[in-house]
């Protein structure tokens, strides 16, 4: 296991093996996505309160899960990079950022679309919505910082520090926002606290969550491969792979 991880950390091996994984991961993504959408949109019964409109949940909830999951994952990789100085770890962090921001945006947007028929407003300053919005700001700040620093390696390391600072802060931000909200306006959105969900809705939801994870894995590996190639463009193995095209 350790040996495999060591091997995986070498850019060349990473490039080769992930190239083989990506088609499989992509195929699995499509399959789970189709299955999840089929069961979610067609098979699952309508909600007794919200009717059909609850079905946006099958996009909204997995996207929100992913938005947090990716941030924690980025913090994990940044930690690895800062401690052991493994180049590939920061490739993964940098490649994840835009995906994380997109999932956060997707969660906010679908939430807003869902909120309009349910609460009668596109946006309420509910604690969860607000902390999700702040999470989006954290992602965008990270992306802006990495884009602003010219040297890629420095950019990734600086971004790593920011992510780690952010991950210490996220629980504090989350609970302070929750506290702020409960003091300000009380629980007006009890509808959001879902009563124990029925199995016929839970299964498509979980399939969608798996599908979103697979999608993330597929795309992040594709992005990471491109990033590895770009960083290693002067090394022998990349030249060998692409021959004369890169030489000039």
């Amino acid at each position, binding site marked *: 296991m350790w040996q495999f991880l060591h091997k995986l950390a070498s850019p060349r091996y990473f490039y080769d093996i992930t190239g083989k994984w990506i088609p499989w991961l992509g195929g699995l993504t499509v399959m789970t996505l189709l299955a999840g959408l089929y069961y979610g949109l067609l098979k699952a019964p309508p909600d007794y309160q919200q009717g059909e409109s609850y079905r946006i949940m099958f996009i909204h909830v997995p996207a929100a899960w992913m938005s947090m999951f990716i941030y924690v994952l980025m913090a994990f990789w940044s930690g690895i990079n*800062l401690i052991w100085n493994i180049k590939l770890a920061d490739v993964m962090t940098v490649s994840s950022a835009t995906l994380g921001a997109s999932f956060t945006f997707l969660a906010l947007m679908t939430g807003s679309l869902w909120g309009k028929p349910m609460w009668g407003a596109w946006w309420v300053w509910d604690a969860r919505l607000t902390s999700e919005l*702040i999470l989006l*700001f*954290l992602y*965008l*700040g990270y992306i*802006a*910082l990495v884009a*602003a*620093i010219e040297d890629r390696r*420095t950019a990734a*390391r*600086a971004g790593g*520090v*920011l992510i*780690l*600072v*952010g991950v*210490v*802060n996220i629980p*504090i*931000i989350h609970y*302070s*926002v929750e*506290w*702020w909200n409960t*003091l300000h306006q009380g629980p007006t959105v009890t509808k959001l606290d879902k009563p124990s969900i029925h199995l016929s809705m839970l299964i498509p939801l979980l399939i969608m969550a798996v599908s979103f994870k697979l999608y993330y894995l597929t795309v992040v590996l594709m992005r990471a491969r491109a990033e590895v190639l770009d960083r290693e463009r002067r090394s022998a193995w990349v030249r060998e792979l692409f021959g004369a095209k890169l030489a000039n």
Partner: protein
Amino acid sequence: MFQAFKALMKRDLLLAFRHRGELANPLLFFFMIVTLFPLGVSPEVTLLRKIAPGVIWIAALLAALFSLENLFRSDFEDGALEQMLLSPQPLSLLVLAKVLAHWLVSGLPMLLLAPLLGLLLAMPEPAIAALELTLAIGTPLLSLIGAIGVALTVGLRRGGVLLTLLIMPLYIPVLIFATNAVTAAAAGMPIAGQIYFLASLLVLALTLAPLAIAAALRISVS
């Protein structure tokens, strides 16, 4: 070790007092933002009283950010920062000295100005007292957190706006607890909970932020 700490603090304070004009700028900025609110929103006393804690705190937050921007700039440009990185003393301690010196010349004056602004916005006395208390705990917190962002952006030519983007989200808990305490004090409620929260955040920042600042500086300068 503490000698180095003291020496660096003394140097920074001395440098600050040699440029007195620059010292006044963040304060003026703080004052002006607060002045804009009655003009932009409404001069009505009841409304002003209601929004005063938020207005003063947001102004303090922005003023802190703007004054922080140059925390490491001149040291970075004349090479003093590299000397600090190379010195045998722990960088986190030196950084703490710089942040502390900066707070003494920027945060402390804000603390002195705040009661006046409170009066201008018709805040009741207990609220002004609470405002002072939250600013006393909160502004060092702002300096410590902000310094992380400054350290990350010190090598960049146009770090200013970027700094705001990086740091604003991290300031949110401070803003929430502080304004909440002031609002509660104005309503005659106890504020010990919020103050303890702020104080614990300060302790947390005091222990962790210097390490993060030092790590960020090493990355930015190398």
